[in-house]
């Protein structure tokens, strides 16, 4: 065996800074979580379970309301589309924080951060994992909705890609904020990781137009990027108009929240280093 060929860039002149090294480290983190998923079918099933259940419940509600309400009748599957997109957001955030929680549960932080893994590379890996977990969670529900309720979210076409992207960005922003809290407060903040995203549900008009909300809550709603997605979805499904103004505003707000989330994450990471919490991330 040639040792030089098998040596890490550690032994070369520019240790760990080449693009291939960065990709190798991001790939390592993706691989680590692929191994976890591969080893436990129940974890993969868990990713799909709630979206499936939600889709079925809202599917029947949609079917019932279509007989009672002309608003729902005008766009078949309006509520199913809403619940599927809502799950994109939820699974996107969960996908990010669950990956971090896995490291905390296994007390693996110190090993990771004495390796040349940079926080930014770790963040990119978490974003990738969030995309993978959201697709595993939502695509089966979306496919099942076709035979079950004769509704295909894929019929939205390109706007669906835009809605998915905006919701994933919000999921990342929320994921970064919550990850920062987890690093700073440890597993004491775990319940926050599961519950906090649901604070957005009543406010961002998932199942009803924002105009339904009281005035003061509408003001808050327009500061939330998912509001623009759900309003945009209703515009596509009811008026058959894709509103780029809503999309642009949603993306712009997301960029602000991602920057905020990143700042919180990095501050929390450095605080954790100052307090020695990277060594004590278990219970």
């Amino acid at each position, binding site marked *: 065996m040639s*040792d*030089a060929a098998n040596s890490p860039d550690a032994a070369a002149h520019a240790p760990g800074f080449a693009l291939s090294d960065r990709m190798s480290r991001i790939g390592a983190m993706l691989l680590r979580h692929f191994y976890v998923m591969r*080893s436990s079918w129940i974890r993969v099933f868990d990713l799909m379970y709630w979206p499936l259940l939600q889709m079925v419940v809202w599917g029947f509600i949609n079917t019932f309301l279509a007989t009672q309400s002309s608003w729902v009748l005008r766009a078949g599957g309006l509520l199913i589309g809403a619940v599927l997109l809502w799950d994109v957001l939820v699974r996107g955030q969960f996908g990010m924080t669950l990956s971090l929680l896995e490291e905390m549960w296994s007390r693996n932080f110190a090993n990771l951060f004495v390796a040349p893994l940079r926080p930014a590379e770790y963040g990119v890996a978490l974003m990738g994992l969030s995309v993978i977990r959201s697709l595993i969670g939502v695509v089966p529900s979306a496919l099942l909705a076709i035979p079950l309720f004769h509704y295909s979210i894929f019929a939205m076409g390109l706007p669906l890609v835009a809605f998915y992207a905006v919701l994933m960005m919000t999921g990342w922003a929320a994921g970064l904020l919550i990850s920062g809290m987890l690093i700073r407060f440890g597993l004491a903040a775990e319940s926050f990781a599961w519950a906090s995203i649901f604070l957005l549900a009543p406010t961002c008009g998932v199942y009803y137009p924002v105009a339904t909300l009281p005035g003061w809550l509408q003001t808050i709603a327009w500061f939330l990027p998912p509001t623009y997605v759900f309003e945009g979805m209703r515009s596509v499904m009811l008026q058959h108009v894709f509103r780029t103004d809503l999309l642009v505003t949603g993306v712009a707000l997301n960029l602000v929240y991602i920057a905020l989330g990143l700042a919180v994450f990095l501050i929390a990471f450095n605080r954790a280093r100052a307090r*020695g919490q990277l*060594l004590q991330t278990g219970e």
Partner: protein
Amino acid sequence: MPSMQPAAAPVIDGPVIDVRGLTKRYQNVTAVDDLSFAVPGGQITALLGGNGAGKTTTLSMLLGLLIPTAGRIQIFGEDMLRHRYRVLPRLNFSSPYVDLPHRLTVRENLNVFARLYSLRRPAERIRELADEFDFAPLLGRKTGALSSGQKTRVALAKALLNRPELLLLDEPTASLDPDTADWVRSYLERYARETNASILLASHNMAEVERLAADVLMMKAGRIVDRGAPAELIARYGRRTLEDVFLDIARDRRHPAEAAQ
């Protein structure tokens, strides 16, 4: 042992580790108090002290896991606080207090870390280490299902994946039976000798320190209270073993030289 050969002979002018005025305070508690020491290349150095002496805190600061309150750390001539990522690929670490993910198999864990260290042929390196540490039959087993001794061997293999020029070890033979512990110590001795790597180990296992370390930093209450080769320390305190020296220091017995004054 082909895998022990250094990938490139380290060229280091001056000490591998150079610490000046290192201090860590948590509110009113001073865990490490104005520590200064240097570790030369190619040598095994030990941090020896009782519980709470500041050994693990010192290692954590050297690794960059913990930010010091004050002081300077240079490793391979690089400022560890500013250029940590230039240094990390060249060192590695193992501690019984840090786990590898239990749900992953041994092979999967080592594969992930091999990629974190950008090894070009991870499978070959893993096979070599598995053979050397005698856990090849365990490669397919979940890490959580291993005995504590097996976990320690796998953790050491993880620490050697990138053939580090500097190895930081916290109680490297904790949980090992005497036979395996002896084997690990022989391995570390050989590794340091054949690769010219430096090893800094934190331990309160006197036999281990006496056998492995060329230089011992005796720590108490976050400070280095004495320093020297094991034989020098034993002679200086007029004792028969390093354990007796440790007890003298731990129990605040006066230094024989002072007692004579």
